[in-house]
């Protein structure tokens, strides 16, 4: 069993009253193995780092984290959800890096009365009609990054933009949001299969269309291949995208090809605030590179839970935590944000750019705020039960 008890040793040293404290048991359900395992791994690293920074406690309570691997499969995810809730009797589940996994477990887990706190996935159906009092998404909704990017492209005066994305829900959400928020001409809207290796055919088409700028939504290995091939094609066209197009987990794989990419994000490693600085420095020290956005969400998740548990007066039942989360205030690594009525965040979208740092490594330059207090466009469809 990959679970562990944090802060127990510390509480033993304390008074008898502290020893009697029930630990806060939390399920961490994420993609830990296979090709997408890199996401869950970085999320977990952020999560663990925050626990470390908080002395192994959340809201003053010792924490027991029970990890479950969804194997990036809906059927396995539901099975693991059942393990956490039915066997481990855990009522609060976080992690949830993959959209398909969150979509798959949302209904059965909520039916069992659990509280779900997504620290990454934010699919649109759950922001609209599928919203639920016990479902919080603390990271972002797919449309948000590209809302910022679309506005940024308009503000910077680009006239003709070529849009490309991976052919799945998140790809459609992101790309279409960028298009909606861009006021110029859409040259093309192209979707490529999720396991495509070679983009030469699409890049040849793109070159022939001569756009002013390109918006692309790619993640993981696809982002590496796309960004490299885009650079190798020597198109001399600026490339924009969401945070997934290039992040520090991909820097090594993308190399110089990533330099100059302009990215929209709800959080940046280059954001200047003390909490973020502590996080980024701590992460670099522990893992030798900048944290990714999934790591940041994992970290921020713990900070938010810490504040919520304090708010609830140490109660960790779904009901108590839900009420606490709805009014939670804490110093987030991404600056001020709050939950909307659909329990997805309302937050600023920043722009950052990949650049070579003086030490020779790739890093991120903060460009500024692209859009303030962005909410997702689905909130109106959410009829939240009380």
């Amino acid at each position, binding site marked *: 069993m990959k679970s562990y008890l944090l802060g127990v040793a510390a509480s033993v040293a304390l008074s008898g009253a502290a020893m009697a404290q029930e630990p806060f048991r939390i399920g961490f359900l994420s993609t830990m193995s296979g090709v997408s395992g890199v996401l869950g791994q970085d999320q977990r690293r952020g999560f663990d780092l925050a626990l470390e920074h908080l002395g192994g406690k959340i809201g003053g309570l010792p924490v027991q984290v029970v990890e479950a691997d969804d194997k990036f499969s809906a*059927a396995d995810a539901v099975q693991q959800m059942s393990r956490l809730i039915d*066997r481990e009797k855990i009522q609060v589940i976080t992690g949830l890096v993959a959209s398909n996994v969150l979509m798959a477990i949302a209904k059965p887990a909520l039916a069992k009365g659990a509280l779900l706190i997504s620290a990454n996935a934010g699919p649109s159906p759950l922001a609209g009609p599928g919203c639920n009092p016990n479902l919080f998404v603390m990271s972002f909704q797919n449309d948000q990054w590209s809302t910022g990017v679309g506005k940024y492209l308009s503000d910077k005066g680009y006239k003709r933009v070529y849009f490309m994305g991976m052919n799945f829900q998140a790809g*459609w959400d992101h790309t279409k949001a960028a298009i909606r928020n861009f006021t110029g001409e859409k040259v093309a809207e192209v979707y490529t299969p999720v396991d495509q290796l070679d983009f030469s055919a699409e890049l040849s088409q793109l070159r022939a269309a001569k756009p002013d700028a390109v918006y692309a939504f790619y993640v993981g290995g696809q982002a590496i291949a796309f960004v490299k091939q885009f650079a190798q094609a020597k198109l001399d066209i600026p490339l924009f995208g969401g945070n997934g197009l290039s992040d520090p987990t991909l820097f090594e794989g993308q190399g110089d090809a990533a330099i100059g990419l302009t990215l929209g994000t709800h959080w940046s490693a280059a954001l200047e605030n003390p909490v973020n600085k502590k996080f980024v420095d701590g992460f670099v020290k522990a893992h030798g590179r900048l944290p990714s956005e999934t790591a940041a969400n994992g970290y921020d998740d713990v900070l938010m839970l810490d504040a919520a548990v304090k708010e609830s007066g140490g109660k960790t039942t779904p009901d108590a935590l839900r009420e606490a989360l709805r009014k939670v205030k804490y110093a987030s690594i991404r600056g001020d944000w709050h939950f909307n009525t659909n329990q997805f965040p309302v937050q600023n979208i920043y722009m950052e750019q990949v650049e070579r740092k003086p030490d020779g490594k790739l890093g991120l330059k903060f460009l500024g705020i692209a859009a303030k207090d962005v909410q997702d466009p689905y909130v109106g469809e959410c009829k939240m039960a009380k």
Partner: protein
Amino acid sequence: MNPMFRNTILVALAAIFAAAPWALDEFSLNLVTRMLIFGIAAMGVDLLVGFAGLVPLGHAAFLGLGAYAAGILTDMGLESAFVVWPLAIMVGALGAAIIGGLSLRSSGLYFIMITLAFAQMIYYVFQSLRAYGGDDGFALTRNTFAGLIDPYDSRAFYFLTLAITLVIFLLLLRVVASPFGVALRAARDNEARLAAVGLPAFGYRLVAFILSGALCAFAGVLLANLTGYITPGYGSWPQSGELLMMVLLGTAGTIWGGLLGAAIFVALSEVLSEVSDHWMFYLGLLIVLRVLLAGGETTKLLKRLDPRRRADG
């Protein structure tokens, strides 16, 4: 195995399965339900591997076809399992008839690769269904049983799956001993000779392929209902490989081997993934070792223990 001994085992097994819902927590019960569901699929695959001597590397496609057909029909407003399930199974059977008809013109390694390629084709169809979430998939409301069974009661669903598995198991035992089953095995042993006495192998193989496709589709329907969610992953080729692993982990050529293998596989991947994030490595290692060290021998040993098999093959 002498009849006394066998009956004792059967009674014991029946007791264990009947008591399971009260002895196990919901998670473990769902796990057992999952074992049974994959057992149905593995029995179907074993019909081809063990009895027809054909190795399909694309049967996850039928698992996916069953799941998608059930999901889409339910989404269209048909809710009753009595309507949706037979239709979904028929979709799987129809798919198997087409793919089988084309694949069975070849045999051996060629058959393996062609079934794989057709399964990929179906996988991409699932992936391109934008109305059904594309690669992310879509949710399914569990099918209803005219008020007879509560589909959201884990115990009820377990007993339903158990009953279905049992019926299929017994039917398959009859099928492989039937004239059809004998013809199928004869075609496996010596296709040319079977033709020389007047039976063409193709038709029997095709029917076996359709049967096994339908069983996988049934498993897909059940899995979709258990999970409440359907993704293209149901039809992915690693899933096809896993179905073959189940057949191997049990004993190919015995119907109960499919059930046993599925149980072992589900338990194994559950346990390994709880122990290590690198569970895939250890799973691969176990499979390789199973093939290398015990591959033929266990099968032979188990065959020798069963006098009926020795008599009529």
